[in-house]
């Protein structure tokens, strides 16, 4: 005859049943005990497949892609500031040395304007392509 309820049996299985306790159980309780034991074993089994082998690498790439835009913005602003300050300083020094340099410098800048503009555009294009490449490695919902 069945003596134990499900709560008692679950507790016994969780705590580990001794051979002596097992002997004292009714046939019905023994069956219940075995089914619960089987269930507990199955619940404790790890799934067959875990995360992919390169999971930690993927997380690092995604994290760096998230951090990089912030540091990239700072980098662009710093480069822009240095570039502007350098030109201003160069003009200032040249004017101090000889006022004629001012017109020569401006003339040089005008004649080289396309090369200078192309250089700046090329620099930003490389940075943009780098960002695009990093973003393409992120899962769609994180882009």
């Amino acid at each position, binding site marked *: 005859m069945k003596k134990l309820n499900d709560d008692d049996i679950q507790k016994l299985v969780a705590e580990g049943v001794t051979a002596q306790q097992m002997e004292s159980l009714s046939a019905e309780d023994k069956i219940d005990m075995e*089914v619960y034991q089987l269930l507990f074993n199955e619940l404790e089994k790890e799934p067959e497949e875990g995360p992919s082998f390169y999971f930690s690498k993927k997380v690092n790439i995604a994290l760096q892609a998230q951090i990089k835009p912030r540091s990239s913005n700072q980098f662009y602003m710093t480069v822009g500031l240095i570039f502007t300050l350098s030109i201003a300083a160069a003009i200032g020094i040249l004017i101090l040395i000889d006022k004629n340099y001012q017109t020569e410098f401006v003339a040089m800048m005008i004649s080289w304007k396309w090369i200078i503009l192309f250089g700046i555009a090329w620099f930003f294009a490389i940075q943009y392509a780098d960002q695009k490449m990093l973003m393409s490695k992120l899962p769609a919902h994180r882009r």
Partner: protein
Amino acid sequence: MFNEREIIPKVINGDFKAFDQLVKQYERLVYYIILKLVDHKEEAEDISQEVFIKVYNSLNEFNYQSKLSTWIAKVAYSITINHLKKSKSDRFTEYPVNIDHYHFTAENPEQAMIEKDKSAYINHLIAQMPYQYKTVLTLYHLNEFSYQEIQEITGMPEGTVKSYLFRGRKLLKEKLEQYLKKDTMKLS
């Protein structure tokens, strides 16, 4: 040997190698919690990635009041529940159904295939359960968290955790019993 007291300050200071160690240490814990809730491998991996980025960004809020594993599991649980809510998934129901009157989907050819393998059959049953039951069963049995830790991770009172665990196991046991009887009849 993973020492969280050494690793955490390094990660906070932006050490990516230390973060890589942290991810390797807890990737299975996080992935299994999420996988049991969403029941989709690729989705589980994407959400796991989101969890670790959140862990990296919020690690300075960890106050050593609990184990790091408990704190990370809490982040994983919260992000997954938000994900299920946002996707308006039928896997998410705010109010758990009365499990004593719960009915699994009727038998179909796919289920008949699954039933050939005991483990697959139990996983199939768990996948159909309300998320509160899946969560406590996974956290307690697979991840080996205590009742108090599950309370901290999910925000459910300890009594509720125990109740979900007991009722979930009882329901699964009843289905498993039927399965074993069918199996014995097939053999005889």
